[in-house]
Each structure stands twice: as structure tokens, then as C-alpha cells.
């Protein structure tokens, strides 16, 4: 018996001492580090305050979406001070709302959300913000600025614009040039924006006319089916813009099967297979417009900075920005080497 009590006493003693050390540690942190830390860039790899980031991503049934999840996970792993709470990816609005509510209940420090449907998930974004959890809204934007602290995403309009300008420059000396468009899923807002941007760019080139547009479904199968019909419908044209490199695998198959090589093709998104095809230069695919999945890694950076109350390296602001739109660069043979590492499978 006495042995046990002494052991218990020892335990209590150690606990008390360590608690004291811990307290001291905390207070000293708060008084000294915090004000100074505002100057530290987010990209700083030095470990800071522990941050738990909740990540609610999409169902990875598509190359780009899969790359989004991978980018988020591997970036979080890089930081010793970041714990990633990740939910099962979902394309179902109701299910994703439930998952985000779970993350709110777990009291994560920051939320990163790529909503299946931005408008439909605005309410749960608001709910998180009201609960004091800052939300980094990734790619598909919420309806209300109150529902997120920071938005980061790609530029769908710019994607169309840059694709249009690239094609326009290539064809500007050709009289009566004909262009066709293989769009993505027509019930997505982003598809409309990509088409609007494309049409806006083509307006700068009066010699070019868009003669056909068909929507596919972002899948290889639909890309092959729709492209083969387009090729049959248009016996001659000079350029094709395909919104998505995944469906582009199918589109390229259809072009090969029809034995056509009389036009130039520009892809979209930046898949590895597309970049490799551009590099080897043995098909009609000459360029692709980026929609970088690295935005997920950047979202983790921003979430970490938010959790540690830091600004962004190189910017004078103490806080991270309210919104960040990534540039839709055109990758062609000239610069493909530089972008190849970002290509997703």
C-alpha cells in the first residue's frame, strides 16, 4: 500500500511540474511570438502553432479532382504543425453538408472546402464562419462573401480567353478560319464561363468563325463519342478547343480513328498525358490551358497561415488576401518542360 501511494504522489508531482512548464511555455509564446509572427510568410516551413485543418473535398472520380485531393494531402503532410482532418469526398450536396457539420463539431481550426456545388453549400459555410472557424473556399465559389474568409480558385473565363487568344494568334493570317469547341458538362457554371471567355477572345479576330460546339461530360467515353460526331459534322476546320484533358484522351482517340490531322487542338486543365503529347509533338494537340490543381496545396498554405495568424510572404499585408485567382497559363511546346511536373494523371 505505501508503495502505491508514493508512486501516486510521484505521478502527481510530475504532472504538476509538466503542467507548470506547459503553462509557462504557452504564456511566453503568446507574449513574445505573436506580434512578430505577422511578418512571417505563409510559405515559411518553420514549425509554428499547431493547426488542425478540416478538408472537405470532392469525390475523386476524375483526374483533376483526384489531383486536388492528392495536392491537399501531400502539402499538409509537409508541415509538422498541420493536422489534416479529411472527410470522404462526395458529389452529393446533402452528404457534403453533413461532413462539414461533423468537421465543425470536431472544432477544427480552419476549414478548406471544395463544394460539389458552391451555391448549395453557402449555408454550411456561413454556419462554420459563425462558429468562429475561418473557411478557405476552394475553386467553386460560395454565394455569399460572408460564408468564407478567403477564396482561391482557377479562372474559367480566363481559361477560355487564353485558349481563344492562342488559337486566334495561330490563325490570324488565315482567311475564313473555322474553329470548333468541345465543351465540358453543360450543367456546370464553369462550362458556361469557359465558353464565354473563348467567344470573347475570338471576337478580336474577325477572320475566325466558331462553326460548332458540342458538350461532352468530362469523361473519356463521352469525349470519344462527341468528338467523333463533331469530326463527321465538320469536314474541315482549323482549330479545336477542348475544355478538359480527361475527355481529351477520348477526343484524341476519335481524331486518330477518323484519321484526321488537318487542324490544331488546344486542351484544358493540364493533364500529364496532354503535356506529354504536347512535348512529343506527334498529334494534333499543340497546347493546353492550365487550371492548376496545385490550388489545393495553396489552399492548405493559406489555411495554415490563417490558423497561425500570419500574412503571405512578399506581401505587405498582415493578413492573407480575401481572394486569389490563379492564372490560366497556356502550355505549349516552348514551355512544356517547365510545367510538366504539375501535370496530373
Amino acid at each position, binding site marked *: 500500500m505505501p508503495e502505491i501511494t508514493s508512486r501516486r504522489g510521484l505521478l502527481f508531482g510530475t504532472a504538476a511540474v509538466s503542467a507548470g512548464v506547459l503553462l509557462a511555455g504557452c504564456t511566453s509564446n503568446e507574449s513574445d511570438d505573436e506580434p512578430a509572427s505577422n511578418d512571417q510568410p505563409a510559405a515559411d516551413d518553420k514549425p509554428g502553432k499547431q493547426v488542425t485543418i478540416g478538408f472537405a473535398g470532392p469525390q475523386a472520380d476524375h483526374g483533376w479532382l483526384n489531383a486536388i485531393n492528392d495536392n491537399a494531402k501531400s502539402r499538409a503532410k509537409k508541415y509538422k504543425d498541420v493536422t489534416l482532418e479529411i472527410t470522404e469526398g462526395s458529389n452529393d450536396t446533402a452528404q457534403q453538408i453533413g461532413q462539414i457539420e461533423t468537421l465543425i463539431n470536431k472544432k477544427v481550426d480552419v476549414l478548406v472546402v471544395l463544394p460539389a456545388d458552391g451555391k448549395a453549400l453557402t449555408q454550411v459555410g456561413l454556419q462554420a464562419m459563425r462558429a468562429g472557424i475561418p473557411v478557405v473556399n476552394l475553386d467553386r465559389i460560395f454565394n455569399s462573401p460572408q460564408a468564407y474568409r478567403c477564396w482561391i480558385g482557377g479562372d474559367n473565363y480566363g481559361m477560355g480567353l487564353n485558349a481563344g487568344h492562342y488559337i486566334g494568334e495561330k490563325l490570324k493570317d488565315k482567311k475564313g478560319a473555322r474553329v470548333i469547341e468541345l465543351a465540358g458538362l453543360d450543367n456546370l457554371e464553369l462550362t458556361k464561363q469557359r465558353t464565354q471567355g473563348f467567344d470573347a477572345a475570338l471576337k478580336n479576330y474577325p477572320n475566325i468563325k466558331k462553326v460548332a460546339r458540342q458538350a461532352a461530360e468530362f469523361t473519356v467515353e463521352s469525349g470519344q463519342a462527341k468528338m467523333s460526331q463533331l469530326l463527321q459534322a465538320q469536314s474541315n476546320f482549323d482549330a479545336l478547343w477542348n475544355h478538359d484533358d480527361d475527355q481529351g484522351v*477520348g477526343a484524341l482517340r476519335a481524331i486518330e480513328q477518323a484519321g484526321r490531322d488537318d487542324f490544331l487542338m488546344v486542351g484544358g486543365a493540364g493533364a500529364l498525358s496532354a503535356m506529354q503529347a504536347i512535348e512529343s509533338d506527334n498529334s494534333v494537340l499543340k497546347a493546353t490551358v492550365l487550371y492548376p490543381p496545385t490550388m489545393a496545396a495553396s489552399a492548405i498554405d493559406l489555411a495554415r497561415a490563417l490558423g497561425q495568424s500570419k500574412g503571405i510572404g512578399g506581401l505587405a499585408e498582415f493578413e492573407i488576401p480575401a481572394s486569389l485567382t490563379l492564372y490560366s497559363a497556356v502550355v505549349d511546346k516552348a514551355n512544356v518542360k517547365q510545367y510538366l511536373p504539375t501535370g496530373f494523371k
Partner: protein
Amino acid sequence: MTQPVSPPRDDTPKLSPQVEPSPWRAVVARADVRTLSLLGVLAALILIGGITKPDEFLDTRNLQLVLTQASVIGVVTVGMTFVIISGGIDLSVGAIVALASVWATTVATQDYGFVGIFFTAVIVGVGCGLVNGVLIAYGTMVPFIATLAMLASARGLALQITDGNTQVVTVDGILDLGERDSYVLGVPPLVMVFAVVTIIGWLVLNRTTFGRRTVAVGGNAEAARLAGIDVRRQRLYLYLLSGLCCGIAAFLLIILSGSGQNTNGNLYELDAIAAAIIGGTLLTGGRGTIVGSVLGVLIFTTITNIFALNNLQSDVQQIAKGAIIVAAVLVQRRTASTT
């Protein structure tokens, strides 16, 4: 004649005026009015296509294209027709096509080349069909539920195998089958497979004991059992058959698209059921024809082709597709009831 008092007697007065049909009507009846009306719809579509886009539509390449696009879903529909005639349903066909196509295109199977890919696709298809069949025939599960469960799990497994990636086929011999060089007398190999499956399906349904048993089970399972048919085993075979067709379709899809993706075969179940119904197969079982189903598939593919050639947008396409399904079934009802 007295007023009929019970449903069985109801039939007698209706039958009497048809005792002496005109010779022309007899010919029509033998050729099956339903098939004729479907051919009429198809002819009307061809007319529309020919008028709106004469150069592009009435072109050998376009005919090859339409038939090629019809091949994959066509093979699935042949299997589906058998299942529906027997009074069942297979909601898992699209998911089985997806699973078979991604399993067959994993790097491991690509090492064994053409043979490896073909057999993996077929074995996965038959395997899924076996699970469906055992659950339905011996586990006495409702086909709707059993195949719904297969739909969910096969899609999940396909996603797990690919991890969301598109698995591109690197084996050359396979891709060549989709190229123009491999057409024999202008017929693409895919279309040949489709034709062979259709002919075998027709022979099995109309000329074998297996076919008669299928119709009997769908017409009245209890009567079929009393007549000495092993209804359970018959059902097992039917889902195996549907799975086999999905495996073959997956292989065709791999040739066509040059890859395996977990989104393959999306909504095939609905397209195949719709084609079978348009083709005159009763959803309650007991009646249906392979020719009708295949015509249903061709009608769908031709519609899609005409829409694309005329550059109609997808919203218009969907509305028109729905309207044409309704119109085709209504026309069919009308022609069927006049004989």
C-alpha cells in the same frame, strides 16, 4: 352472346372477329407489327438526317460511326433483353462495364497484352453476373435490390482500382482494332462483334430450349416450375449472361476509347432498359425480341448522331430524346392494337 361476367370469358368475344384476317394482315402479323413500326421510326429518322445534313449524314463513314457507337451499348442491351424477358432487371450493367474496363486496363493485366485484357474484362463481367445471379436465384433477393447493390459496389471498386485516374491502354494490337485500317469490307471489328452477339442472342432466344425457358419464367414463374423448369438455375444463367455481355461491352469500350475509366458505362442501365422497352420488351416479363431491342439502340444512336451533326446543344438533345421515347412507344401501342 351474353355479357362477359369474368375476365377469362372476356377474351372469347374479342377473338371471334379475328378468325379470318385478311392476307395482307397475316403477312404484317407474321413480320411483327412492333418491329415494323420501329423500322418506320428509324426510316423517319434517316429521312430527317438525310434532309437536314445530306452530305454528312448519308455518308459511309457516318454509317460506320453510328454502328460503332451503337456497338457497346448494343451488346449490353442484348443481355438486358434476356433478363427483362425473364421478369427481372439488371441495374448494374453500367457499373459492371466500368469495373470490367478498369480492371482490364490496370498495368498488371496490360502486361499480358490483348489476351490478358480481353479475358480480364470477360471474367470480371461474368463474375459480377454470378454474384447477381446467386443473390437473386438462391438468395431469393429481388433483382432490383441485388443489382442495385452491385451497381454501388462495382462503381466503388472501380473508383478504388483507378484512384480516379484514367488508365490509358498502351498495348498496340488492341487500339488498332478501332482504326480504319482494320475494317473488313468497310465493317469495323466492333460492329462485327455487335452483329455476332445479336445473331447469337436471336438464335438462343428463338431457337433453343434456353430461350423458351426464359420466356416461360418471365410469363409465369410458378407455371414454369410446375412444367419442370429449374427456375432458379435459369435465373442464375440469365444474370451470368448479362454479366458476360457487359464484359464483352467493356472490351469494346476499351478498344473505342483507348482507356479504362471509372466513369465508363455511365447510365448504361437506363439506356439499355429504354432501348429494350422501345423494342417492345415487356417490363413485367414474358415477351420481347432481340431485333426490337437492337432497333431501339439504333434509334437512340441515330438520334444522337443527327443532333450532333446539326450542332444542337445538349439541353435540346435531352428534351427531344425524351419526346421521341414517348412518341415511339405510343406509335408502337397504336400499331399493335390495330391488329
